């Protein structure tokens, strides 16, 4: 699933950038975005971080509104829990984790840890996939 998305995105990037001369950085950025999109797609909409990633990538207003409303609702419920959580538990580290995990700003520590777990899983899978691709390309 992950590979499917990613390879499709890669092909698309190759096709679009071949004709025109492309700066490496731009292309790299596109690939990176494609990677994140593919892992978000693979994770599905069940995960808060995947939703956040997809929304940030697509930038669709509807998606954003939906996500925001969802986040607002959840944060409203847990608003009490978010701040004391941040302050109490390992303050700086939790903030760091929030920054790293997409969409982690409005999560409780509990959900944050859960999201971090799935995020790590998907990232590892993506890295493995990219390794395999690079290996096969270079051989």
């Amino acid at each position: 699933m992950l590979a499917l998305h990613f390879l499709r995105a890669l092909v698309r990037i190759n096709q679009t950038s071949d004709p025109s001369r492309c700066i490496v950085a731009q292309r790299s950025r596109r690939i990176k975005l494609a990677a994140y999109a593919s892992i978000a797609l693979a994770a599905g909409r069940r995960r808060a971080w995947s939703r956040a990633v997809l929304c940030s990538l697509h930038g669709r207003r509807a998606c954003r509104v939906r996500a925001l409303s969802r986040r607002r609702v959840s944060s409203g419920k847990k608003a009490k829990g978010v701040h004391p959580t941040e302050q109490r538990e390992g303050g700086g580290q939790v903030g760091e984790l929030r920054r790293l995990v997409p969409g982690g700003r409005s999560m409780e520590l509990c959900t944050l840890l859960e999201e971090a777990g799935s995020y790590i899983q998907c990232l590892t899978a993506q890295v493995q996939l990219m390794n395999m691709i690079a290996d096969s390309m270079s051989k």
Partner: protein
Amino acid sequence: MQPTSREMQGMPPSMPSMQPPQQQQQQIQGAGLQQFDDTGASSHDDFFDQVLSSLPWADLNHGNAKSPWDLPGGQKLEQAMGEEGLRYTAGPYDESALLASRLRQHQISAGAGGKPMVLQINHQAAQQQQQQQQHMLLSAMGRSAVGGDSGLLPLPLSPGSVDSADSRLLVDRSRNDADPPFKSPTSSGGDGLYNGFAGSLQEAAQAAAAANAQHFHIPQGGALPTQNFGAATAVGMGQTAAASGAAGGGAAPPRQRVRARRGQATDPHSIAERLRRERIAERMKALQELVPNANKTDKASMLDEIIDYVKFLQLQVLSMSRLGGAAAVAPLVADVPSEASGGRGGGGAGNQAAATAAAPGGGDNLTLAEHQVAKLMEEDMGAAMQYLQGKGLCLMPISLASAISTATCHSRPGIHAGGGNPAAMPHAPAANGDAPTSPNMSVLTGQSAMANGDGDAARPSAKDLLMWHNFNDDVTKLFLLELLVKLCPARLSSSRTGFGPGRPVSRIRTIKENKEKNRCQRHHNL
């Protein structure tokens, strides 16, 4: 009951309301317990001592006094308790509330509901000797409580030790002072005692018992305490606050019950807190399995590991994407050194326009690349950097590269630890050559390092880091070095040149600055 009336008279006036039931108990327990009457007027401490001393004593007596006390006394007790309950639920609980915890109020309020429990319990008690013992103790406690303290907490009673709870109550009471509060707290405490006793004796959690059970945690196995006295004394020594956790004689269930009971003091919050903490612990454990090198037991260090790993993974994705970007720009050249066991040979070695002499084949490529880069460096650092980048290579201090290569235990001709003193000068590189005759480039073919493939836990990550050789991003570079240094601290520190974390970063920075300048110029030119 005449004796009771007599004893009532004998009881100190300060405890009129509590006297009747306790009088009954006194009577039931016989002469030995009469000492309580005498000391009734004295301070609660005396009562405490009395009770404690009387515990073994009462034990001796239970043969005598139990039977008479059971049925008639029990009934009286019920009646008295009923009266008491009615009286004391309406009574002045304010003082006790101030002094004691809300728990007591709960108990007191539940006392009315607990009355039927008491009735049933008394019936049950009639059947077992152990219950009789408890009754005795309870009555003894109650009496001492009567004369006793103010802020006595009706502590949760563990199934195995009603008496321990009683003694705890006693302890509490002994600690408190002030005669005036004696009445209400004692009354409430006595009530609580009875309720607690009832609750603890009750095995089946009945509807009425539910209220008590909440406070007293009584999923009793049905086994009544056999060694109440020992437990009681032991707990009596303990403190009330600690007693909840140290539930004398209690097994794990009573302890948990006690804790939950305590939590009930601020009911929803502490329970929710505990649930939340448990969930967080679960998640942390799950994360521990995901993150490598997660043998840390400390939560803070575990969080650090997690954060670092997420950063590392993100950087890997970034570098791979850069690799892909660079590699796809130009056709892939089979630039892999022959000795390399596969590997990607410098990320596909996409040759850019600047790379002219890169003829595919054997190990020549690397030398060629080195020469090329050296040439470029003499003219323009930026171009050199771009050339390297196009090849998917990076510049690295010699010490670091050599340290890493020795760490990976693989001597690869492909790895030339070049002494980059790139900050020095474009013209300088040739002069900075070290013992190796190779030029001063440090051209690390990441994949070749990767191919070393040892089982070392730290190495895979080092190799992975070496994979990304795109250093467009400052953060990437700095982080790369940071991570490398972190991963191989021991090796690096042992390196001959005294490699330190500060130096390579500065070097890279200078490289980057030059590169940035050049790149900007180029962009402007373009």
